[in-house]
């Protein structure tokens, strides 16, 4: 599904991502873990076109998408959520999702059709699926942190991605919200065949749902494998698991 080849990026001489080679398999729930500053978010930014890599390639389903504009990468099937909540604060929950639905359906540049008729059904279904229907008329800024994160997930899903990148999807969530979100991610992967690549601080959450784990340390890949392999890796235990 996604293949990264010798990917590298430095900021002012500091190697944020260093010669990363990795593969995400179709249908997998793949986690990237590592201490703060390991380069997880930068890696996401390189994949989604937020930053241009200095070296290497990003290949999505055999197509080289390195350095393409963000919106094109999104149109090719990669959606993402952010570590900080990144929604439309003054738009209603409904509009937040509808903007993405209209974009996915190719209606963004339709000047004279009425917005309230576009993608209504799809938007409502998605809100329902994520348990957000009850909030649909509230503004984004009026929601609690956990619900905002859910809304961001809904916006990402509205683009009907093939690959979903989630940057710390449960950060700041209450335990109950975390449980619901993790279940949802599993359901999306199983039910819709969505491939999920996510970063997470909560190690218990990672081992609960990830089928494959990549461990990053100082911009490079330290280990990769099945959860049990990663857990047993002495190097990983030394730099990461042991510390937490």
């Amino acid at each position: 599904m996604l293949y990264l080849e010798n990917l590298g990026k430095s900021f002012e001489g500091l190697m944020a991502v260093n010669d990363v080679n990795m593969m995400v398999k179709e249908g997998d729930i793949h986690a990237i873990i590592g201490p703060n500053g390991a380069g997880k978010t930068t890696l996401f930014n390189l994949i989604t076109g937020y930053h241009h890599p200095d070296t290497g390639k990003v290949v999505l389903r055999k197509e080289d998408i390195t350095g393409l504009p963000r919106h094109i990468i999104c149109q090719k099937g990669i959606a993402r959520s952010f570590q900080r909540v990144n929604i439309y604060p003054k738009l209603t929950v409904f509009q937040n999702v509808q903007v993405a639905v209209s974009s996915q359906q190719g209606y963004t540049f339709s000047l004279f059709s009425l917005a309230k008729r576009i993608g209504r059904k799809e938007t409502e279904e998605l809100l329902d699926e994520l348990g957000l229907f009850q909030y649909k008329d509230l503004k984004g800024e009026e929601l609690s942190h956990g619900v905002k994160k859910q809304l961001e997930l809904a916006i990402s899903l509205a683009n009907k991605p093939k690959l979903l990148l989630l940057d710390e999807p449960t950060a700041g969530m209450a335990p109950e919200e975390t449980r619901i979100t993790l279940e949802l991610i599993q359901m999306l992967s199983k039910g819709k065949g969505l491939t999920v690549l996510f970063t997470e601080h909560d190690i218990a959450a990672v081992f609960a749902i990830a089928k494959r784990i990549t461990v990053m340390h100082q911009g490079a890949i330290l280990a990769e494998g099945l959860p049990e392999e990663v857990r047993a890796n002495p190097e990983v235990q030394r730099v990461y698991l042991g510390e937490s």
Partner: protein
Amino acid sequence: MGTLLNGPQRHFANLGVLWWVAVGIILMVFPIFLSKFWLYLITFMLIQALFAVSFNLIMGYGGMISFGHAAFFGIGAYAVALLSARTSLPFALILISAPVVGGLLALIIGFFCLRSHGLYFALLTMVFAEMLYHVVHKWYNFTGGDNGIQGIPLPFFLETQASYYYFVLFLVVVGIILVWRIVNSPFGNAVMAFRENEERTDFVGINTMKLRLEAFSISGLYSGLCGGLFALLTQQVSPDVMFWTKSAEPIFMGLFGGMYTFFGPIVGAIAIVFLEQFISAHTKYWAIFMGLIILPVVLFLPEGLYGTFERRIKAMIRRRGEI
């Protein structure tokens, strides 16, 4: 619609319809009892209202403040003036040239300016507009320089003040309805989404550069039309239509009336044209007094006159609906 209105909501919806019918009737009968002067002023007001509403597509809805819309207004005015004075093209073509050149110029200027954001964007648009102002101001052979162009002929069916008023009224109403459709379209939603969060908008697969350029060009197209209508109203043009103060007008009208509402800029246009007329009739220092009136509104009613009014009415309907 599918929305169920409760008692008070239905009551206010009916009031709304009544209000529009009344406005329509008043606008239709103005020429019967208004003097030539007042009809001129109302015609000017209509043009300014369209200028402000279309400008608000980028300012209020899109969060982009341009200091250069005088360029589009001016080029529309000059297109009509030059084609009327120098060619024998049919009137319809002359009139259409105004929005066309306004839109094209906005497309070109926007292409360069929209690479930057915020203050840089605003200043770049101003620089382009100032450049054009100086070209028009100095190019005597073509534009008449600071003398401008006088005696723009009107076709026979628009020669009376009343017929020109109805003509402008028709175009302004149609123009405003089209802007309303645009802001309520998926495009309008995307423009608002851009204002709220550009980064997120990129990542829902929207080409934000194209989005902004399109919105900017639409507002430029409308400004060009307004400039053309203004040239026909005054039957002359001078470089004043391209001066930077012209660029400030739609900003003030939007701020004064309320840029986060659709009708705010219209209210702002009406209020400002009236005030300007009223104050300048009494003192030559009218600009100071205008400033003294606009300042407190911007400071204490950041939602503008109409914006504040609309919020209070909505709150009142909600309160009554809950009882």
